[in-house]
């Protein structure tokens, strides 16, 4: 797995761990937020990719700086690594949607320290900096949250914005070049089916878009695929707004 910086300002950083080697499980991104010597993981990943994730993490942050993790919803590609992380980090705090707590405990580590996120959302502090939990229910799980860092203008969007890309893909939509609409159009073809098939509710989508449009976002970071930066953030919101979801099986 590779590691790359997403945002950096002094001791405040966002990292992405991406392009996993194991291809038999869905390719997933893991994000790390680092602030004042403390770190949290966002959607730390599945059981099978855990060794790669931890090895990549150790290359970019002080491993002992990890204090906790955020889990957007209950899926195995998000949280089935929980018992392994908990063996390595006994004091880790897990920020988990309240609705999924007892489901996620099925992955193991009954003794893990959970902090429930109520349906209306909430916040956590990392090294004194605030990360907000933004409700994204039914996108796709019935209890689902995203994370917003207002200072960095980074928005972790979980499965929203996800694309199924080939191995060796870039961190950014459109690669390292400028954010062109052509590159966006090309990329979004790999995101279309994912959103139509996994996102069940047009009403939930509309509500989420209205909420997210109020935020100042420079980077929209999905858990699968590549990051939308600058103009591509607005291109994505417009595209998602116009997409009818929950229709992949409709003929």
């Amino acid at each position, binding site marked *: 797995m590779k590691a790359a910086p997403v945002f950096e300002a002094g001791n405040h950083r966002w990292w992405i761990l991406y392009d996993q080697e194991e291809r038999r499980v869905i390719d997933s991104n893991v994000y790390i937020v680092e602030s004042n010597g403390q770190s949290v993981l966002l959607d730390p990943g599945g059981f099978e990719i855990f060794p790669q994730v931890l090895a990549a993490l150790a290359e970019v942050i002080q491993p002992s700086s990890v204090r906790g993790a955020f889990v957007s919803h209950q899926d195995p590609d998000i949280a089935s690594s929980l018992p392994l992380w908990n063996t*390595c980090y006994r004091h880790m705090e897990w920020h988990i949607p309240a609705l999924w707590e007892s489901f996620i405990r099925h992955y193991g580590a009954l003794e893990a320290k959970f902090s429930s996120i109520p349906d209306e959302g909430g916040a956590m502090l990392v090294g004194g900096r605030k990360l907000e939990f933004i409700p994204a229910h039914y996108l796709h799980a019935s209890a689902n949250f995203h994370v917003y860092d207002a200072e960095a203008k980074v928005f972790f969007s979980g499965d929203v914005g996800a694309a199924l890309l080939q191995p060796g893909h870039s961190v950014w939509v459109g690669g390292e070049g400028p954010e062109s609409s052509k590159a966006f159009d090309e990329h979004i073809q790999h995101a279309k089916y994912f959103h139509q098939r996994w996102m069940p509710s047009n009403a939930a989508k509309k509500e989420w878009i209205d909420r997210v449009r109020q935020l100042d976002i420079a980077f929209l970071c999905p858990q699968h695929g590549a990051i939308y930066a600058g103009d591509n953030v607005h291109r994505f919101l417009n595209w998602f707004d116009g997409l009818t979801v929950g229709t992949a099986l409709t003929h």
Partner: protein
Amino acid sequence: MDIQRIMRIMDASYRTCRTIEYALHEIDRRALNAMVLVKRHGNKLAGYGVVAQAFREQAAHLKEAAAPLQHSTAPLVRAHMHILQRRRNAELFCRIAENARCNARCADFVRQSEGSRQRGIAAEDADAVVILRELVQTVARLQEGIAEQEYVVTNGRIEAALSERSGAPLMRVSHEMGVAVATVRDAIWEYRSELEGVLHESSTGI
């Protein structure tokens, strides 16, 4: 193998790489300053100019030698985390075995699969030891480079003493170089001790 020990290795590796990176950058910066100082004084300090140049070259070599250090840790972390995964599975089977004590057919199945799980863990353990040995060798090569750098520090001190009358603060420059080199030496030594501790544990099956 104590998983917390591996976590300490990961931390030590990260810390060592950052310390080396910073100290080598400092050595290079100070050597460059020394070369400027030497130039200002003309031929009188030519001897120290040679030393300063050697400092820069050694720092560049060390930087090159230290570059794979962090990457070399990744396979070790991966190997141990694979072992952790297998152990996790083994624990689950142990629980099944406990619950199935009165069910003879199920207990037999669990017992048979236990052997193959243990063999899998032993094979992964052996792989991890090989990786660890390679890592210790990489660190040993770095230590050789540091020894050469310390030799240059000594030469620098001699040259500085010989040029004392020039008025250029070469003794101070040499002292600072020595401190920077000692920082790298101590960081690597500490890292090697940590690695050898794990290697000893692994070899003796602790």
